[in-house]
């Protein structure tokens, strides 16, 4: 019983920061419109990278930069991650970092396969 009451209290606290406006995640519409606009701009920029056929390091840097910016804004603002508690942020955002290991391993593997193929096609 005590536990139940406590949980309810915790739940209310979670929404406490916005209690003045009512329940849940409430933020000004203006903020959403700004992020929306930014996402359009970043998408247009990344499209321009291809349209003007930028190549080499400039291309990869710009593509990754716009990708990271768009992804961060979507997660932080649209998915409200910016307003969640750190415990939830860590539980959701840290595990995907293990994927870097997979990506590194598969990059090494891909490179190795490529070299093996080149070597066997030469003979």
């Amino acid at each position, binding site marked *: 019983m*005590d*536990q139940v009451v*406590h*949980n309810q*209290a*915790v*739940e*209310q*606290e*979670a929404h406490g920061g916005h209690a003045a406006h*009512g*329940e*849940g*995640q*409430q933020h000004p*519409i203006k903020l*959403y419109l700004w992020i*929306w606009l930014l*996402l*359009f701009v970043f*998408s247009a920029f*990344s*499209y321009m*990278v*291809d*349209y003007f*056929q930028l190549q080499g390091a400039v*291309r990869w840097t710009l*593509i990754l930069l*716009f*990708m990271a910016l768009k*992804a961060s804004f*979507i*997660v932080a*603002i*649209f*998915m409200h991650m910016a307003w*969640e*508690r*750190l*415990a*939830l942020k*860590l*539980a*959701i955002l840290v*595990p*995907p970092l293990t*994927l870097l290991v*997979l*990506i590194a391993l*598969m*990059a090494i*593997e*891909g*490179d190795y*396969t*490529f070299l093996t*193929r*080149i070597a066997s*096609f030469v003979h």
Partner: protein
Amino acid sequence: MSHEPSALEPGFRGVSADWSADKQAFPVPWGKAMMWIFLLSDTFIFSCFLTSYMNVRMSTTETWPNPSEVFALTVGGHHIPLLLIAIMTMVLITSSGTMAMAVNFGYRRDRKRTAMLMFATAALGLCFVGMQAFEWTKLIVEEGVRPWGNPMGAAQFGSSFFMITGFHGLHVSGGVIYLTVVALRVLNGFYDRKGTYETVEVAGLYWHFVDLVWVFIFAFFYLW
């Protein structure tokens, strides 16, 4: 209990307090926590697809078909590279915007606006899937792309393309159904009777995630 609700601490002390205390770890509605965990697992699925795509693209000795050319459209005699994909990207971003606003109006208990914005989101999602169907048809019928080969270069292009965009398209289609169901419930007052509109936010999380995945597909598959 020693913890008063008002004593919730911020920062890393808060993390250890949240995780070690004999209580609910995440002070959010359970549906939201579960959706986040589902999305985390989905992140791993899509990452595996994209990583396998990276692996086959790195290891092939044939040239990779140039996406800029493959996905070009000819409009009124003008050859515009990647046009359809750019439009699809804009449609999906727009739908993310309408969804964010729907969540907002949901918490304001504005039933009509919430439902309308959600229907708009679903309609844009449907539009996206339609364009994807057009893209697939064009690639299969006109360009002769197959999962096992294509006339433009590396055979792995087809399998990577169909797998990644197909799985994403499936997510969008599922999302359209999901949003439609929730929007209908918003309209008939289900969440007013339930006393909370958090389901709208949870559906929103799913939809934004679909948009998020597209950001990565757009960068790695179409622009790389």
